[in-house]
């Protein structure tokens, strides 16, 4: 079981970065909606407590993974990533072919604002705190699962953590600039890439975990991503409904 090559490390970084960025955009949408509607104090307190709780989870569960044998870890992580990747991949295909509505950050923003407007404004608002906390905590758990599973199975926890922190910095910076235009983020394309990459990692690590020798070693991972991507493109092209040509009468 080899350590990842440079291309493998880049693929790992890119996958964790994109997966984390997608979750962070969702969390940021909720926090901005809470901040604008109910004031930033409760929103930022909710964010701070959620970040503390997430740090606690990492401190408690992170080191425990180091003692798990690599083969077992890769089987478990591979299966988790495969299931997680398949879900994102399927949803992204369904959105691309028009069978599912695109994930709309504007709608999430409007929904959050509407829910918060039901409670009266206060300096310290429990509803605002809870909503910001839940948004950051739940999306944060998904980021942690991504970082820990991908990073530990590849023995590159540092690379995975750096990718997540980079995503946090980029999303926070973009959030400060665009605040309410988060719907401009090409979320479906990002989810498609993450879904395909997670399914590729899942395929690769399940194989490695059960003792399979992939031809080309790490390059098999990139080959899966390319093949899955190509097949997805064919599926999207063939399943997208074509517009009926309009008959022109002269």
């Amino acid at each position, binding site marked *: 079981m080899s350590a990842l090559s440079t291309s493998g490390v880049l693929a790992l970084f890119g996958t964790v970065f994109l997966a984390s960025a997608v979750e962070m955009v969702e969390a940021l949408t909720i926090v901005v909606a809470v901040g604008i509607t109910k004031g930033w104090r409760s929103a930022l307190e909710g964010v701070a407590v959620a970040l503390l709780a997430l740090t606690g989870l990492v401190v408690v569960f992170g080191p425990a993974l180091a003692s798990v044998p690599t083969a077992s870890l890769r*089987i478990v992580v*591979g*299966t*988790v990533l*495969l*299931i*997680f990747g*398949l*879900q994102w*991949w*399927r949803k992204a*295909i*369904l959105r691309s*072919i028009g*069978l*599912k509505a695109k994930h709309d950050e504007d709608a999430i923003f409007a929904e959050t604002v509407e829910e918060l407007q039901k409670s009266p404004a206060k300096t310290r608002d429990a509803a605002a705190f809870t909503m910001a906390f839940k948004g950051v905590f*739940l999306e944060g*758990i*998904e980021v942690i*699962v991504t970082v820990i599973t991908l990073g530990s199975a590849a023995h590159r926890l540092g690379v995975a953590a750096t990718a997540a922190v980079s995503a946090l910095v980029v999303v926070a910076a973009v959030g400060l600039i665009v605040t309410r235009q988060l719907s401009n983020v090409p979320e479906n394309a990002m989810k498609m890439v993450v879904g395909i990459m997670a*399914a590729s990692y*899942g*395929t690769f690590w*399940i*194989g490695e975990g*059960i*003792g*399979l*020798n*992939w*031809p080309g070693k790490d390059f098999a991972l990139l080959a*899966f991503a390319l*093949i*899955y991507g190509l*097949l997805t493109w064919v*599926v999207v092209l063939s*399943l997208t409904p074509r517009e009926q040509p309009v008959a022109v009468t002269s």
Partner: protein
Amino acid sequence: MKFVRGFGKFLFEFFIGDTPELFVLGVAVLAIASALLHFLNAQALVIVLLPLMVFGGVLGSVLLERRRKSG
């Protein structure tokens, strides 16, 4: 207790949600690949079959949803 129930609900949504077929597929891929490798030592077959099962599964799930929506 409320936290445990909430966390359980989160895990259920995370792994199963509205696509139980994908959860079953993930576990089935692991079980079939392991069985083929350990009982038949079929390395080459598993190398081809594993990614095929993965892509076939996602395609099947997409087609299933398409049929649900159109019918």
